[in-house]
């Protein structure tokens, strides 16, 4: 099953994830990004595609700064 088609639920809250603007920080810089999050406890989901794609790009940019 492709990762994108999965329906993730927060195991603790038994809630389906919803997109939510989340602030990410790295090396003293912050970036806001819409991420899937548990609506109840706020646990944030990061996919492999995101971690190794966009996030890694931004991380490298900030490291070079």
């Amino acid at each position, binding site marked *: 099953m492709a*990762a994108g088609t999965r329906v993730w639920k927060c195991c603790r809250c038994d809630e389906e994830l919803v997109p939510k603007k989340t602030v990410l920080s790295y090396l003293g810089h912050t970036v806001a990004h819409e991420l899937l999050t548990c609506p109840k406890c706020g646990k944030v989901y990061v996919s492999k595609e995101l971690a190794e794609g966009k996030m890694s790009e931004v991380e490298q940019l900030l*490291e070079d700064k």
Partner: protein
Amino acid sequence: MRLEDATAYTAECFRGEPASCSWACPFRLDVRSFLDKAGKGRWAAAYKVLRDATVFPAIVAALCDQPCREHCQRPLLGDEPIAVRDVEGAVLRYAKDRRPQSYAIPPKDRRIAVVGAGPAGLSTALNLAQKRFRVAVFEKRDAWGGALRPHPRFAEFDADIALQFSAVEVGFRFGAEVRDLDELVDFDAVYVATGAGGGSFGLLESWDRGLLTTSMPKVFMGGELCGVTLMEGIAQGIEASKIIEVFLQTGRATRPPGEYDKAKCGHYLDHEGAVSVPLVQASGPDGYTEAEAKAEAARCLQCDCGKCIAACEMLSRFRKDPRQIALEVYTDMEANPFSTRAVTRETYSCNICGYCRSVCPVGVDIGALLQFSRAARMRAGVHPAALHDFWLRDMDFATGEGAFASPPRGRPACEYAFYPGCQLRASNPEHVLRSYEFLRQTRGAGITLGCCGAPAYWAGDEARLQANIEETRRQWSGLGRPTLVFACATCEGLFRLFMPEIPRVSLYELLADSETIRPVAPFAEAAVFDPCAARDDHSMEAAVRNLAGKAGVALEELKERNRCCGHGGHIRIANPDLYDEITRNRAEAGAKPYIVYCANCREVFALRGKECVHILDVALGLTADSRVPTLEEKRNNSLRVKRELMKQTQDIDFEPERREWESLTLVIDDELQKEMEEKLISALDLKEAIWRAETSCDKFYDESDGTSLAGLVRPVITYWVQYREIAPDTYEVQSAYYHRMRFEREE
């Protein structure tokens, strides 16, 4: 950080400085640039370089006696020096537009008198006029040219002078002999250039060669009158104009800063790989044709140093001049939060292997500079911690749970102690255990399991390094201050640097000297791949060759020795592409299999599929294992070595602390395992993530097929693992990844 602290590392670098020919030229003509342009047939551009340096290019091209040729480096290849003057002549013929540039600067009101319209006086007058001073030239004859007038080619020179003066305003007073300097009191400065044997108004004795001053304030002097050559006299005109300008601004004659640094320009290069090309002969009596001039100019070797850049993959990739790097190491520390640092990636991409220093004619060590930068960034807290986190954690393990020191069984102290280093025992426990057995039997050796601190050193973490040094010293004293026996050149090098009081010997020397050791040849022919860290320790190199020779291996030397396998400096996370390029180049550096004596080199080559064995396999007659253990296996290997040696020396049963998650079983397919190793993700971290998720339900869950996703937030890195339980306490891992950013929850 002070600027000098950084630039001191590259102070001797002469890249970009004028070449030896320019150094010899009275005009400091940038011969390299001139010949480069001429070689491409860019006549106008070449002419401009020539004109800007020499003032009267036609005179110089005809009469200069070419001291540059004495310092041309072509003869090092057995060729004749470049025919610079003949190329200059060609440039004058083929440059179509030779009109002088006009100077769009506002006129100045200071007045300067030049006495004498010979070449030296004319040069000074022209250069001052270009700065828009009001210049008057007094000449007792009724025309310019001075000593050049009788020359058969004077018509050409005359035309050149007229051409150069065509863009400036200068008042010429011909037939006006100055008999007394009092006649010139209205002028703000005077330049006397009356030619060989000309009148000096009694000032010659007081002439200062450096500043061109005389005992009379305001009066300067130069040219053949002062005993310099015709060419030097013309060149002095340029200097005189600068000195007089400063004098008029400040009232003091000083040389403007940024003058030529002679010490840096006399360097001759070795021109490795350059081929001999004979002097181009002119086919006709009128000098070179365009094609001939281009060919002759193209013989220029463009002498400039860039040896380190050519030799090093990292420096080639970033293509920055060493002195620029030093400057940016400094400016990076001064960067404010909004500016961008310039050399961060480069700083963490260096193997710090010292190869640049070994090829540099003046011993510049860019690795040392970047090491310095890493430490400064760490001190200032502006280091990207994720780039070294893996190895620092590994060091924590090696110096914590994995550490152990003891004299041999039943003895309070020892004269020798084996220091295998952290990587050898992780990669091959047999190497350590068998070597220890040899050392125990032959030297009554004890054992020290620890880490030399290379991870802290390469991360720039001086505090951690220092703490480790102190702990190491304490352990060593506890063993009775033995000679430490090293198997790893990196360890040995760091001890040499930071704990020089500890006596050292290499394991390979002791093995090579031993009668009982019977090395076994794994290959008939091989090349020894010396680690970068062994560059300064030839005893290791020799002992390894000795052992291989005893085994009967026919050795071939690699063209370049002591190159870093890629592991040095821990660059793999900071620059994976570069790491890949370097490891590939090293694996391909020799066609024969390699014999290595560093666990990291072995790992690099094994992963590249390069046939290779560790010298300990040869010396101890072991069957070489071509596999590289996983990160988790490495940890277990280290603990196994500790357990066996604790039992053997202290008769203690060491039971490493077992965390709850260590009993989980993970099923990881080969492809994913390989990917994890490349990303330096240990299965142990995944076990912890899964265990925590399963015991707290802090995870994501897909009901359709029972797949879970757990995250583990470590101080620097956040790991994720997607998995499915396939049996009790057994999980099939589907993917594993990480990121460095952290979440700041926001409402």
